[in-house]
């Protein structure tokens, strides 16, 4: 018989490590239905019929965060055979808070006290037998990082699942609360599954809106239950939700006092705290942060990254992947068009993307290390003040940082932001950061028209950051982003030595999602593009064309390129390059190579290509084109990631529409205003349009936030209430 064991625990308790340890490479990663919370499951090593279901890391089973709702609805409706609850042995008190809620579900629970190696090192003692008695579940000691005890814990959970017996429920609450809960249990008995009786009763006591919705109790019963709750509230002079939370913690206090002996004095500094004294120090924090980011980028994009990219591009991507197969195909006398399709269409396209992989892996490797060490939470802590001003949260920095490597994992990293509004805002703006694939575009124009000036790249980053900040200010005043401000209550986990296993796992997971993109979207689009630019209608009818000026692609580009004329790049080559840029931004360079008859294997520093670009663009129109391509819709893969993370067609369309619109308007202003100054364009309709756009932006930036106003009055009323009390 198949057994399902759910893995539950707080964030940072070592759950991911244990999950990887238990399942090895036998994992399936997907999404929970209807929401964008990651769902991971895998088969237990050595037990084909045991499925380990990883739940999102949560602190509680409240109805307020997406992760918590996902976890509890899984536990209540799917009824796993057992719950394996991992708790951090160095932070038992807060971790047990979730445990008190898990045991109430009436499912067999096994508690695994993790990080026992650290507990012992600190000289602390945990009395497992007392914990077990106090919470009514079996307790085992493990150290996931060292690979100790994990399998034993899983086997205990299997045994508990087969026994199908939940433990004795601890009496967590005081007399009057237990009394009210008993009354509620009596009233709803028969209306809910028997083993969930206590859980439902407590949720009703808390007036949990999500549970009340699902129960459909009649009004009379509701009023009756409400009486019990109100009585209890009056007696204890607090609201029901607070009563429950307070008493859980009070119960845990008692348990911890008996079962956990800490060697160090209260509020004393652990090693982690000592590190933090320096790392998040008022004076040193920002310089250290800058230094860390510089180091990450120096390694990823500096000499090592460049060497890796060059090697993969020149040796692996071109020589091995394209030239060798071409030799074979020509050797066996394959038809010219087929060789072309395979080598120039498919393999060259894949090669161009693969060339990017090593650099990406180096970047992901370093970000994974920072994440595993615990520095990422500090980044949010340090940056929160700044980001909040633009309607984002400190955690938005992480997706944006990753986006400077690649937008796909960047958008995916937005998952760490709990608040939906902040997350949507982050997804919408994070692709404005110039990603690694946009670098060749910048390099191309900088080399062709700006004498290779580094200022072009600097200004590209500046424009990206400005687009994020201004978008944040504009968007947070719109209706879609109005609502209650999000609480920023975040744990700063203890620093720990990164685990090589975890780091490589995370790096590979991210890298793989990028490689998959090369294998699917890119291959298909490379083939379509190869066809569109190699074939067309000539005097002799439809067929392969020598001159791609008469290709299908040229015809399509020529038909729509007019809309870009006010932006300074109304030639069809620009339109086609922009379109191919949607497949992958680095394609823009290769496309210019093909369209200007230089060859598709060109790099952004090809002198012949520079000459061709200089002929077709002025400095201003080149800059306008570059900015448009930096800000407009990202590549298909990133758009796919946006769609996955937004999980709503409406929001996806809004995000992509916003990006394209902003790109168009900004490029319009750059070309029109710049043109007036340089004399490249004369005053006309375009100028008027640009002035209107500018006025619109200024209005949107400085208008009053009417939604914020409401919020202020609400809190003012609230403050008045507090005072009168």
């Amino acid at each position, binding site marked *: 018989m198949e057994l399902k064991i759910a893995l539950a625990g707080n964030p940072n308790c070592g759950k991911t490590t244990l999950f990887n340890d238990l399942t090895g490479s036998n994992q399936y990663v997907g999404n929970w239905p209807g929401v964008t919370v990651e769902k991971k499951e895998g088969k237990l090593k050595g037990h084909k019929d045991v499925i380990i279901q990883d739940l999102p890391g949560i*602190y*509680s089973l*409240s109805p*307020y*965060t997406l992760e918590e709702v996902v976890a509890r609805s899984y536990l209540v409706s799917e009824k796993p055979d057992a719950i394996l609850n991992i708790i951090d042995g160095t*932070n038992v*008190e*807060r971790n047990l*808070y979730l445990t008190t809620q898990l045991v109430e579900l009436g499912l067999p629970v096994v508690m695994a006290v993790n990080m026992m190696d650290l507990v012992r090192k600190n000289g602390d003692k945990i009395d497992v037998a007392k914990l077990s008695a106090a919470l009514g579940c079996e307790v085992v000691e493990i150290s996931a990082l060292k690979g100790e005890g994990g399998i034993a814990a899983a086997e205990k959970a299997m045994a508990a699942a087969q026994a199908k017996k939940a433990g004795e429920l601890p009496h967590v609450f005081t007399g009057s609360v237990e009394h009210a809960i008993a009354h509620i249990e009596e009233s709803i008995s028969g209306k809910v599954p028997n083993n969930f009786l206590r859980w439902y009763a407590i949720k009703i006591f808390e007036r949990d809106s999500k549970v009340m919705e699902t129960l459909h109790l009649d009004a009379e019963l509701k009023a009756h239950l409400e009486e019990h709750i109100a009585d209890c509230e009056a007696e204890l002079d*607090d*609201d029901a*939700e*607070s009563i429950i*939370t*307070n008493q859980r*913690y*009070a119960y845990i206090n008692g348990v911890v006092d008996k079962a956990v002996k*800490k060697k160090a004095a*209260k*509020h004393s500094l652990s090693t982690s*705290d000592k590190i*933090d*004294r320096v790392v*998040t*120090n*008022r*004076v040193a*924090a*920002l310089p250290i942060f800058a230094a860390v980011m510089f180091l990450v980028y120096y390694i990823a994009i500096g000499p090592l990254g460049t060497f890796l990219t060059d090697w993969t591009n020149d040796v692996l991507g071109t020589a091995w992947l394209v030239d060798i197969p071409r030799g074979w195909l020509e050797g066996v006398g394959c038809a010219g068009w087929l060789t072309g399709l395979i080598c120039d269409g498919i393999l060259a396209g894949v090669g161009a993307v693969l060339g990017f992989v090593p650099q990406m892996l180096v970047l992901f490797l370093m970000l994974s290390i920072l994440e595993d060490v615990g520095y990422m939470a500090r980044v949010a*802590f*340090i940056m*929160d*003040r*700044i980001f*909040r001003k633009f309607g984002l949260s*400190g955690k938005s920095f992480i997706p944006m940082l990753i986006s400077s490597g690649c937008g796909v994992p960047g958008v995916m990293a937005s998952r760490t932001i709990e608040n939906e509004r902040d997350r949507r805002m982050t997804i919408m703006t994070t692709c404005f950061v110039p990603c690694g694939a946009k670098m060749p575009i910048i390099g191309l124009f900088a080399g062709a028209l700006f004498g290779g000036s580094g200022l072009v790249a600097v200004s590209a980053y500046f424009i990206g950051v400005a687009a994020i900040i201004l978008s944040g200010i504009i968007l947070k005043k719109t209706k879609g982003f109005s609502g*209650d*401000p999000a*609480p*920023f*209550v*975040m*744990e*700063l*986990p*203890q620093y720990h030595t990164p685990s090589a296993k975890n780091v490589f796992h995370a790096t590979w997971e991210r890298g793989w999602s990028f490689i998959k993109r090369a294998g699917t979207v890119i291959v298909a689009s490379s083939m379509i593009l190869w066809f569109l630019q190699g074939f067309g209608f000539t005097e002799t009818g439809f067929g392969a064309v020598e001159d791609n000026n008469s290709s299908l692609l040229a015809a399509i580009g020529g038909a729509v390129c007019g809309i870009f004329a006010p932006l300074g790049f109304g030639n069809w080559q620009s339109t086609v390059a922009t379109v191919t840029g949607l497949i992958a931004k680095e394609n823009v360079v290769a496309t210019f190579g093909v369209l200007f008859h230089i060859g598709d294997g060109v790099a952004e520093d090809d002198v012949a290509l520079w000459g061709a670009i200089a002929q077709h663009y002025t400095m201003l129109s080149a800059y306008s084109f570059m900015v448009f391509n930096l800000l407009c819709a990202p590549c298909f893969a990133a758009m796919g990631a946006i769609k996955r993370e937004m999980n709503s067609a409406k929001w996806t369309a809004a995000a992509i529409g916003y990006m394209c619109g902003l790109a168009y308007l900004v490029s319009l202003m750059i070309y029109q205003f710049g043109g007036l100054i340089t004399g490249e364009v004369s005053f006309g309709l375009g100028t008027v349009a640009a002035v209107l756009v500018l006025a619109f932006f200024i209005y949107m930036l400085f208008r009053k936030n009417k939604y914020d106003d409401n919020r202020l009055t609400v809190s003012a009323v*609230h403050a008045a209430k*507090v005072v009168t009390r």
Partner: protein
Amino acid sequence: MKTLKEVKVGETATVVKLHGEGATKRRIMDMGITKGVELHVRKVAPLGDPMELNVRGYELSVRKVDAEMIEVL
């Protein structure tokens, strides 16, 4: 009424009452800031906000706006 926001770095305070309601209040309580618990203000972020607390033996960061809802003694 003294709130957590006014507690200086390095000082310890005891929670008297939590104001506010809904998600934010529950979240703060879930993280262990409940009536009677001791909060030790560890530091304030370099840019002046948020603040870092030691509560129930771990480190928690809270924005000053939310700290204002926590009445302390």
